[in-house]
């Protein structure tokens, strides 16, 4: 079991900055995120987009903001559980919490700060009525181990980078690869598009365009995909596996079942005081929370995190009082004892 002072759900910019504010108060943090790398939306959706409203940065790429935050919190050495969604929460008799992540890993802390943004990023599932029936029985939304597909018949759908790249990669592994796309144009690196054209011309990848998969058939396991052309014609394509690759979209997910007050997919918090939720000891900061006048801005999340950890401190240390000191006065001392502070002036006698 992982033990920490503050368990942070979400490794986006606000979750990461929470580690910093907590660190100033000597509170240790552990961060859980469904994505395999820190950064949340900034890393997953728009790493190369510039952000113009981070105070002090006239312009910064979302990916660089995350890199900077990771560097800023390094002295406070946070723990990470990445690539795993936080699934369930249990409140113990002493008021502390145990959060279980997807692999069954247990995390124990007296305070939980939810900085979950729009939720966890999950593969977009095509609107095929019976697709759920074939999940783990031939339908995979993510390619985890290409060897699984050796000598199998694969149908991939999607027109973006990952559909293209996996079709090219699996061509040498699978018995047969069919790539289905709604349009004729494929988007991706020019050399990948070129390679696809060559493999399609030689018949090594069966490319079906102006089409989409509309139905799946099979008994215990997927056997065929039913493909509809734009002109209405139907085609049956045998498949051991169907891999729809349509990117990721955020879902609030299991947090919605944690007993928190939810309004329009966001967690209600007390913005007059501490950004606490209806459950004492659980705070919510950043885009995941809501209150009158809420602005979904990274900078607002930073503020909320700074306030929330002050109140977290008094839960974790009920007998102590924390006196806030400016980093300009005190510098920062990492958990490894290394101190960063203003350089002292040196006097040289001449």
């Amino acid at each position, binding site marked *: 079991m992982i033990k920490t002072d503050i368990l942070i759900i979400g490794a986006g910019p606000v979750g990461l900055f929470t580690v910093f504010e907590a660190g100033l108060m000597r509170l240790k943090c552990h961060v859980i995120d469904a994505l395999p790398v820190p950064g949340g*939306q900034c890393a997953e*959706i*728009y790493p190369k*987009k510039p952000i113009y409203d981070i105070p002090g940065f006239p312009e910064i790429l979302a990916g660089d903001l995350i890199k900077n935050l990771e560097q800023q919190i390094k002295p406070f050495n946070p723990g990470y559980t990445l690539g795993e969604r936080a699934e369930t929460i249990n409140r113990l008799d002493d008021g502390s919490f145990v959060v279980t992540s997807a692999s069954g890993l247990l995390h124990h802390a007296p305070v939980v700060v939810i900085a979950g943004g*729009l939720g966890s990023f999950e593969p*977009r599932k*095509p*609107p095929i009525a019976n697709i759920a029936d074939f999940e783990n029985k031939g339908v995979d939304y993510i390619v985890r181990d290409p060897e699984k597909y050796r000598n199998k018949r694969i149908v991939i759908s*999607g*027109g*973006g980078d990952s559909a293209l790249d996996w079709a090219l990669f699996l061509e040498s592994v699978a018995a047969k690869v069919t790539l289905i*796309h*709604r*349009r004729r*144009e494929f*988007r991706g690196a020019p050399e990948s598009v070129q390679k696809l054209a060559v493999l399609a011309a030689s018949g090594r990848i069966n490319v079906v365009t102006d089409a989409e998969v509309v139905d799946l058939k099979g008994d215990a396991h997927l056997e065929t995909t039913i493909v509809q052309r734009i002109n209405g014609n139907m085609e049956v394509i045998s498949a051991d596996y169907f891999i729809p690759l*349509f*990117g990721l*979209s*955020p*879902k609030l997910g299991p947090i919605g079942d944690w007993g928190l007050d939810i309004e329009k*997919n966001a967690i209600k918090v007390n913005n007059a005081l501490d950004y606490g939720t209806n459950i004492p000891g659980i705070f919510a900061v950043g885009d995941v929370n809501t209150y009158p006048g809420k602005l*979904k801005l990274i900078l607002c999340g930073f503020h909320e995190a700074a306030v929330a950890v002050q109140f977290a401190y008094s839960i974790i240390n009920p007998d102590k009082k924390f006196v806030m000191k400016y980093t300009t006065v005190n510098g920062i001392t990492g958990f490894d004892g290394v101190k960063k502070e203003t350089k002292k002036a040196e006097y040289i006698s001449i």
Partner: protein
Amino acid sequence: MVNITIIDREGKHHPLEVPSDMNLNLMELCKSAELPVEGTCGGIALCASCQCYVLSAHELPEKSEAEEEMLDQAFFVQPNSRLGCQIQITDSLDNLVIHLAPDAN
């Protein structure tokens, strides 16, 4: 001001009178009219939650690379599909009619 009609997912018509000088786009209009459009990505053509079908014969700005790319990953896409966040409301959009695409989530 321009008149824009938004047909929601249940088929209900919402005739709206909209200022054309406020740099609004169709996604923002839907949100401000409290129609069920999430605008998850904030308007940078990265989520398709504002996908709509353009029913009137208006000449619209061409789709950007980013919009085409996102529509490639979206569902229920039709030839007249657009992302509302990529369409700025201007005087030339008077009497525009759009239908919200089904919610893919």
